[in-house]
């Protein structure tokens, strides 16, 4: 039915709106219904195409649900050990300074296991970009508590809800990154509605632009839903991002040296 309609539509003078970026593979994704990874993949792909970086991009993928990103994007990809994407990306970028290098990491990967790698990479001001997907749980392994899990949130390893006095409070990675010297751009965005998606794309492009201009490290945190591990329907999970996540993890740009000459990166180059 679809193919017949398509041919007829094109003959009748219809044009497609919001076509898929060519760098995205046209194949079914393994993500759960309502997972925001697909939206994030598309935004990254659109940003890469619009900035003309596809041919020189090397993607560093992490461990987590997004481990198969190389199946969904036609990019050269290095698969990093759990948490070490930022360290691997440092090596890739230093060996191939002409390449555009970005990592795509989840919150268990970047904020827990790879916290040291990520923060030191940012602090060194490596000229690379990190796309950080924060869904407040370890998605792939079954919804365990992550460093970003909200207080009171029930997960498989915090069945009574996360307790702030024993497990601490969630890490606000975008703010933490903004406080480090080598970071040129740090922002937090969400993908729950079209308006937020447009803002998210702007942030991703700004972070990528930092690397293209050689200004330093670009970091974007995307708040994302995990309906399966939150034990919710996709629509409830989308709602939860708006009502629970955004009040704790405020959206916005926390550092942008393009607009603020006081925080421009000086030195640090080898």
């Amino acid at each position: 039915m679809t193919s017949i309609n398509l041919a007829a539509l094109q003959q009748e003078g219809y044009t497609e709106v919001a076509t898929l970026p060519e760098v995205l593979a046209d194949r079914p994704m393994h993500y759960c219904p309502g997972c925001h990874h697909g939206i994030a993949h598309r935004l990254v792909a659109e940003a890469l195409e619009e900035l003309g970086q596809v041919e020189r991009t090397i993607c560093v993928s992490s461990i987590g649900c997004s481990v198969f990103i190389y199946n969904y994007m036609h990019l050269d990809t290095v698969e990093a050990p759990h948490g070490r994407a930022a360290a691997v990306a440092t090596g890739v970028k230093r060996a191939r300074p002409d390449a555009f290098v970005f990592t795509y990491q989840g919150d268990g990967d970047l904020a827990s296991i790879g916290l040291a790698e990520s923060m030191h990479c940012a602090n060194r001001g490596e000229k690379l970009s990190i796309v950080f997907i924060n869904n407040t749980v370890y998605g792939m392994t079954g919804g365990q508590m992550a460093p970003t899990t909200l207080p009171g949130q029930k997960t498989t390893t915090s069945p009574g809800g996360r307790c702030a006095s024993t497990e601490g409070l969630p890490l606000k990675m975008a703010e933490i990154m903004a406080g480090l010297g080598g970071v040129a751009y740090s922002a937090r965005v969400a993908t729950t509605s079209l308006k937020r998606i447009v803002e998210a794309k702007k942030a991703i492009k700004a972070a990528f632009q930092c690397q293209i201009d050689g200004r330093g490290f670009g970091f974007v945190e995307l708040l994302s839903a995990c309906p399966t591990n939150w034990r919710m329907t996709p629509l409830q999970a989308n709602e939860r991002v708006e009502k629970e996540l955004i009040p704790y993890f405020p959206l916005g740009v926390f550092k942008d040296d393009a607009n603020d000459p006081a925080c421009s990166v000086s030195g640090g180059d080898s």
Partner: protein
Amino acid sequence: MHHVLINEERCKGCLLCTVACPKEVLEQSARFNQQGYKVVEVARQDDCTACAACARICPDFAIRVFRKKSAKPKGAKGEQA
């Protein structure tokens, strides 16, 4: 009238498109696809404004939106972005 095409085998029935659409064009159908997901369908095609909010929010890229060229006199091109 603009057109929304839904790739039912890709749709996972998450319904994010139904809340993204400002005109409530899309809604859940009674059909299941081969994966067992209850897919969305185009319920009110005439209301569609081809804003492509559904296509942009669909995490599985199952929606394609086609804009009908407006009946403008020839030469007045360059309207669509």
